[in-house]
């Protein structure tokens, strides 16, 4: 078979699978955004409603809260994860048996699925017998018997903490790789010139690490938008829907209220920024 056909035949099955399983559903959900459809009332999509689903979303307090939560969740988890991951990566630079062992441990939280992370944290945070809440109560008595998942602010903070716990080790692994690839000459030159360690990190290491840092930031942003399993297992979006993010809001709208058009509209509010981010990631970040 001539090679100019063969090369396309080789990619065809894979491309077909991706198009059929992602492209197709994506287009279908885009079409649903302009339909009114309650699955409990009709097995088929209902009337064309234009952008009503979108305007309904932006007038709904639940949707706006989920949108705000998503933005806050992104900002908090990305910032905390990057700062902590960079700290761990720098701390582990020196090598030696202790640090090599700890570096090997960094893979463990990632082997746990987000659902498992959510469950484990719910266990740790239980006000009566959770290791975290009881230990904290022993150290700071005023925090004893705080029910971490019962108030909106604390439940949200718990979600952020669990998510940061799950992702920081993995992001440190990426940054350790990035640090190892930095050219050592400028760093050594600065040290010979008597620059302090902190100055070297701030003025030489971090600027050179920007490409890798931007990969970490973008990946973590995407993981924050996609976060669902952890929220489902940890707070279920509660108390009283106050910790829902857009992913979770779309899920409850679609699969608890069976409001398919409205759910699709809420999803597309997430999809568009994500597609732009992908474009940015592949165009600028992966190329550099």
């Amino acid at each position: 078979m001539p090679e100019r056909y063969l090369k396309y035949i080789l990619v065809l099955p894979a491309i077909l699978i991706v198009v059929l399983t992602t492209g197709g559903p994506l287009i279908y959900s885009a079409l649903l955004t302009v339909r009114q459809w309650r699955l409990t009332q009709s097995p088929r999509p209902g009337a064309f409603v234009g952008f009503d689903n979108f305007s309904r979303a932006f007038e709904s307090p639940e949707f706006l809260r989920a949108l705000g939560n998503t933005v806050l969740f992104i900002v908090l988890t990305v910032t905390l994860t990057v700062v902590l991951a960079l700290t761990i990566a720098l701390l582990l630079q020196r090598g030696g048996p202790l640090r090599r062992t700890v570096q090997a441990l960094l893979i463990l939280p990632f082997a746990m699925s987000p659902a498992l992370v959510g469950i484990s944290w719910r266990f740790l945070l239980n006000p009566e017998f959770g290791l975290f809440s009881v230990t904290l109560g022993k150290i700071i008595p005023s925090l004893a018997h705080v029910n971490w998942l019962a108030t909106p602010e604390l439940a949200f903070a718990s979600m952020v903490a669990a998510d940061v716990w799950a992702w920081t080790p993995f992001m440190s692994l990426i940054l350790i790789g990035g640090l190892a690839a930095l050219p050592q000459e400028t760093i050594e030159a600065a040290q010979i010139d008597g620059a302090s360690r902190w100055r070297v990190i701030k003025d030489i290491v971090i600027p050179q690490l920007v490409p890798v840092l931007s990969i970490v930031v973008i990946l973590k942003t995407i993981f924050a938008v996609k976060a669902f399993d952890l929220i489902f297992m940890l707070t279920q979006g509660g108390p009283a829907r106050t910790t829902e993010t857009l992913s979770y809001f779309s899920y409850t709208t679609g699969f608890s209220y069976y409001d398919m058009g409205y759910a699709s509209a809420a999803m597309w509010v997430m999809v568009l920024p994500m597609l732009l981010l992908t474009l940015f990631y592949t165009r600028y970040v992966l190329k550099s």
Partner: protein
Amino acid sequence: MNYSRCLSSRSSDLLVLIAACVILVPIGWIVLAAFKSNVDVFQLKLFFSPTLANFATILDPPYVIHHKLLNSAIVALVVVVVSIPIATLAAYSLSRFKLYGASFMLTAILATQFIPAVTIVLPFFLMFRSIGMLDTLLALILIHTSIVMPYAIWMIKGFIDGIPIETEEAALVDGATRLQVIRNIVLPMAAPGVITASIFSFILSWNEFMFALVLTRRDAITLPVGLALFNAETGVQWHLLAATSLIIMIPMIVLALLIQRHFVQGMTMGAVR
């Protein structure tokens, strides 16, 4: 260079130890709970008489966790067997040939992973519902294949990119066909990459939660969704839940350690080497 010297070496050792504890304690605590009786689990005892009774209980009705284990294993294995050969062929072509629209294809393949899963699950739910395929392993296998495919293509392509092309060219000059070259030269050399991608795909499918949650009800429930079984009316049965968590976790930790070196590369899809 020695970055950590801006702290005294003892305080930096201390920070490293704290980080290790923060990573290990939550995992260790749930592992311990798996061996505690339903009385001990409500106490913060570090020393207790360990029991294997939880693992026996979760096999009994109504939990029958081995049934969920079997579902998870079947789905993940079939997904690997189906998607890895397809991904390998595509990766080879994208690595070795100039294809019209190759960079668009690679971007689009990557983009599928950036889209929140909830967007894809809704149309699939509606489709499987209308053709009566909800709660079947086949539906899950289809979906997981689509989740795994992009990662597998990018990972295997990264490995093939790193294999020198000369041996292949020599074999082609000697009259071997392209498919013979793929089978006899590329596959053996790319084997570590293909195996890594297979393990990675297995982990993704095994841990996948949202699709399994939405698309299964009773018969096709996988292990992660099975965790919800322990929310009894009397409260969460933590000892049983911990035992099931351990069953989910152990194979994943073993597999993750096996491919540790390539793990980061897999997740960032070749962005960082």
